[in-house]
């Protein structure tokens, strides 16, 4: 019985480490190039998003309100940009994130040779835990990672708000 308990405890610890390792895939990749001069690096911390969340902003603008509804649930934003060997970085990143923990949401390839891939990490509901955007072309490699509880309903509201704005502009 004692052996069983120890095994059970070990199992929990192992599961914990695996979950941690999955969560840290993006952190590991980001940290790898954090001090690399070939990259432009932007990091907005969870603290910044917490501050946004705590501030009670009265936004009358539909577009701004939709942006805030997405921003409020976000926990961090990481951006990596490089103009050197973009194709190589794109392939490397794709390999790093095309795992069980991420799912490909959308792939776009244009005539100019630019590849855009969206990856998501979710629990199966309408809430995404992470949205990862990879862009690889002739000139530039871009990686953007949004971590948080990104509600697809809010994203659709955001799209609607922008579309509404576009319609208004067309009406003018």
């Amino acid at each position, binding site marked *: 019985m004692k052996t069983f308990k120890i095994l059970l405890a070990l199992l929990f610890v192992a599961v914990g480490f695996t979950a941690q390792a999955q969560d840290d895939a993006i952190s590991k990749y980001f940290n790898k190039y*954090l*001090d690399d*001069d070939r*990259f*432009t*690096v*932007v*990091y*907005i*911390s969870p*603290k*910044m998003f917490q*501050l946004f969340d*705590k*501030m*009670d*902003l*009265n*936004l*009358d*603008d539909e577009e*701004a309100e939709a942006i805030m509804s997405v921003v409020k649930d976000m926990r961090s934003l990481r951006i990596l940009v490089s103009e050197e060997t973009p194709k190589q970085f794109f392939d490397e990143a794709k390999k790093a994130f095309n795992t069980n923990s991420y799912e490909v949401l959308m792939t776009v390839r244009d005539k100019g040779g630019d590849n855009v891939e969206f990856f998501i990490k979710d629990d199966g509901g309408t809430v995404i835990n992470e949205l990862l955007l990879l862009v690889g072309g002739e000139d530039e490699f871009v990686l953007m990672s949004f971590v948080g509880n990104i509600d697809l309903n809010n994203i659709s509201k955001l799209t609607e708000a922008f579309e509404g704005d576009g319609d208004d502009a067309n009406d003018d």
Partner: protein
Amino acid sequence: MRFPLFLSALFLLLLPLTAGAQTKSINQFYRKYKHSEEVFNITVPGWLIKLGAGIAKSQAETPEERAAFQMVKKFKKLKFMVMEDHNLVTPRDYNRLISGVQSESFEELLSVRSDGARINFYIRDKQETIKNMLILVHEADSFIMVSAKTKLKLEEIADLVNQALDGDLDNEEIVPVIKPQA
């Protein structure tokens, strides 16, 4: 036995208070570089900020300006350090400053690194009030440090943002024009 227990309790009670006032790493860094000839540095005391902001507020024309100067009054102390032609700060000292403030409960808000330039923004807050702010701009040939002691409440910042947004909405006729590329 009671006395040490009482002392320990007192120490534990005082610890958060002292932690709120400490910016040892910033002070050490500031002291190390402020006497160099190529360094411009200034410390603005709270009473001077209050006086300046008070005068500016009385001259302000719009409610947003008044709110902004009211917020400036919440700055208790400001330290500026600027190196314009040579960045004397070694990477070791820079990293030591960053790890030092992090160990003093400063939290990173954002960081940017591009073409050898680094921007770091840290705050230390307590009960929805920003107590300290630190902005660092570290480039190959220049360096800027802005360190502030404040008592800025998040709701006050939100009020200012709301007022600024209201002002923008009042001026809706000002629409940015994007020129088509040739």
